[in-house]
Structures are given as C-alpha cells and as structure tokens.
C-alpha cells in the first residue's frame, strides 16, 4: 500500500517519464539529421610526393563525440603490425605478442605525447596502453633493432588516411565549429589548418594545403 501523499509522487514519475521519452526522441532526431559530410581537396606545395597523410577534424570549442575504441598491434616475426596505427584520443592499443617461438619484446616510447614502458611482453601475452591526448607517438622494442612503429592519435573520430594528396570526404560530422588539419610524417612539411563551420548537410570544396616549412629559428 502506498501512502496517499506519495501516490501523487508516483503518478508524477509515471506521467513524466513518457513525456521525457517523447522529448528525447523528438529532439534527438534533428541532431542526427544535422550530421554532415565535409569534403575537399588536399594540395601539397613544394614538389614532394608525400604519402600516407591523415586528414582530420579537431573540435574548436568542445570535446569531440566519444569514439573510444581498442586497437591491436601484433608483433609476429619481430615486426609491429600495423606499422602505423591511427587512433582517436582516449582509445587504447593492445600490444599482442603473437610470436610462434619464445621471443619476448619490450615496447616503449619516449614521446612527449605518451611516454610508456610496458615491461616484458612474452609470447601469448597482451598489454594495453591508453592514448589520452592527440599527437604522434613513435615507439620501439628495446630488444629488437628493427622493430619500430608509430601511433597517430587524432582528436576526433572524423579522419581519413590518404595514400597520396587528392580529394577527401569525412562523413557524419556533427554541426559545430571545427578545424581541418593534416598529419604528415616528413618533418619538412606541415599543414595550414582551415576553420570549417558545419551547419547544413554538407561542406564541400574545402582546400587544405600542405607546404614546406620555412626557415624559422627559435
């Protein structure tokens, strides 16, 4: 038996819940509909034929939608596979020693973005490292001289890997203010970020430029 005074409270909860559900449904539909595509062209100036360029969007005033995932890097045959892994900030990478013989690895990084030492990874073991902030992380095995890999931590799930300069499209980008940028491995080259405002179904013909860094002293 529910006391009389509390019946109204219960009624209130029961009555409000469907209304809230309707409101959430109604208001969430337009948000989904506002997800847009951002497309354009990546141009490289300076004569170099750059490869493996990551084009990505960075939120300018808020945290990007969570898209935290787990990624895997294997080590069979004393090789990190894949050699380059692109992950979203906040994600984890599982380093898996899948060697067929009893070969141990010690994976570590001295990078400012993420410094780590996973200790000894023996055959069959898996060790997890998180990558909370964007940047480029070079890592090595301290045992084997040819084992090195790179993890590129991007600030949002809206990115694409281009094998050469050209056109790109980023899908399902929520509305808001973004900065379009690119990561390149060649130290002589860098991108000039572009502001992108997403408010309609698509943003087209964005030009992103990569050029040779000019002489710049401290």
């Amino acid at each position, binding site marked *: 038996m529910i006391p009389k005074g509390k019946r109204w409270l219960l009624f209130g909860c029961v009555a409000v819940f469907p209304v809230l559900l309707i409101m959430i449904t109604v208001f969430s539909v337009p948000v989904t509909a506002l997800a847009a595509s951002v497309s354009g062209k990546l141009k490289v100036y300076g004569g170099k034929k750059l490869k493996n360029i990551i084009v990505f969007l960075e939120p300018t005033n808020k945290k990007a939608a969570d898209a935290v995932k787990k990624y895997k890097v294997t080590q069979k045959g004393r090789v990190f596979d894949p050699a380059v892994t692109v992950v979203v900030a906040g994600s984890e990478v599982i380093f898996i020693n899948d060697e067929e013989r009893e070969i141990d690895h010690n994976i570590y990084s001295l990078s400012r973005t993420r410094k780590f030492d996973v200790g*000894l990874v023996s055959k069959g073991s898996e060790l997890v490292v998180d990558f909370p902030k964007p940047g480029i992380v070079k890592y090595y095995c301290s045992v084997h*001289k040819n084992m090195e890999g790179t993890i590129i931590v991007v600030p949002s799930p809206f990115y694409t890997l281009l094998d050469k300069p050209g056109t790109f499209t980023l899908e399902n980008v929520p509305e808001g203010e973004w900065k379009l940028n690119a990561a390149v491995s060649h130290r002589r080259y860098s991108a000039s970020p572009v502001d992108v405002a997403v408010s309609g179904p698509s943003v087209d013909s964005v030009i992103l430029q990569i050029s040779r860094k000019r002489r710049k002293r401290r």
Partner: protein
Amino acid sequence: MIAGLLALPVAVLADGHGFDPDEPPPEGKGSVYGTVTARPHKDYVKKAKELGSKEDYDDNDPYAGSADGKVVYNDTMVNYDFADVYAILLNPAAKPGKVHEVEAEGDEDQKPRALAVAFGDIIRIKNATSKPLTYFLADINGDSIQEIPLLPPGGSADMTVELVGDLELTTDEDDSLITAVLSREGLQSQRVRSGSTYAFPNMNPGEYDLLFWFWRLGILKRKVTVEAGEHTDVDGVLSVDTVVR
C-alpha cells in the same frame, strides 16, 4: 661520491681522454668523471640470466641468455655492448665552434646515427650518395627549421647550429637519411662505447647539468656539483627502465 677511492686501474679510464683520477686537479679546478652504460630492460636481463643458467639451455634459443649471466645478442637485437653513448655536461663557460662530421654513405645510410652538439657548433655534411640532397635541421617538438643549399653528389658543406632542442638532421629528398641531434647551449660532450669511462676535467667549481644520452633510449639527467680540488664520480645506466619513469 667524491673520489679518493680511485684505485681503479688507469687502463679502465683510458676512454676518459687521458684523465687520471689519481692525479689531483689543477689549482682551483675540479672534474666530473664516471662510467656510462647502456643495457637492455632489467626484466629482460633477469630472464636471460635465468634461462642462461639452465643446464639444458639451447644456444640457438631465440631468447638469448648465457650461463655466465650476460645477455647474448643475436643479429636481430639491439646490441647494447656496442652502443655509442654520450656523456654531456652543460657548461655556460664552454665555447662553441667544434666541428662534427656527418656523411650520407648511400641510400638509407647516414652516419653517425646520433650527434650531440652545442649551439654554434658546426656540422660538416658530406653527400656521398649519387643524388643531390637538401639538408635541413628540424626541431622534432616544434616548427623550427634551418637548412643549407642543395648539396650535389660528392659535395660537402658546413652548417652552423642555430637551433637548440631535440633535433633531426635529414633531407628533403630522402628522410630515411637521418641523424638524431641533441643541441644545447654550452654543451660539452664525449661519445664513448657503452661501459666506458668519460671525464670532464679542469672544470670551474659550481653546479652543472650532466646528461647521459643514447638516441634509442633517451636522456638521463643528473645535477652535479664540482668542487675545487675534487674529482666527482657520477655513473649513468641508460635503459628503458631507468629513462622512462
């Protein structure tokens, strides 16, 4: 540790450029010396020793160990016994201008792999490849760049270091030709084989930053106080487990 203990054989200290800790320093001066070593991760060393001490240990085992407790290296491994490591002293009184040589010997092959330089030192670059190369020095943690004009095959040129930081010397045309460059103001350095002795004699008394560096393992930092009439002994062990903390 102040060294009055220095009954070490002089031969062991031969790497320290003739430095003899049994000899007192010149009037009003002191010195810093010690041993710098690079080694595998401590967990690897421990396991290699355990396996190596087993009677049924197979020499062909991919996990390298040996009965005498030392790590055995094979061709696939980083051989820390042969690592070139740097002992570096940051000394504001040091004068720059030292010449360091770098040579691109062929595709994907440039020597040395690492170089410690002072701001104002000179890097003498030789292009021994068959293609023209545009060399530049880049700050790996920023956008600073300096470059020299296109270097033809067989040509050489000097680059005066104008950047400070953790740098890389590479080329526009081929970024697999690479030398890690550690540049600091007032840097004095000695490159020695792992396990060898370094020495910085004739120092003015005072506090200094002492760095131990192996490009693959990073930097170990120490503060050192030099006292007049004393030899100060500072050893360094470079390993993943001592550098990454």
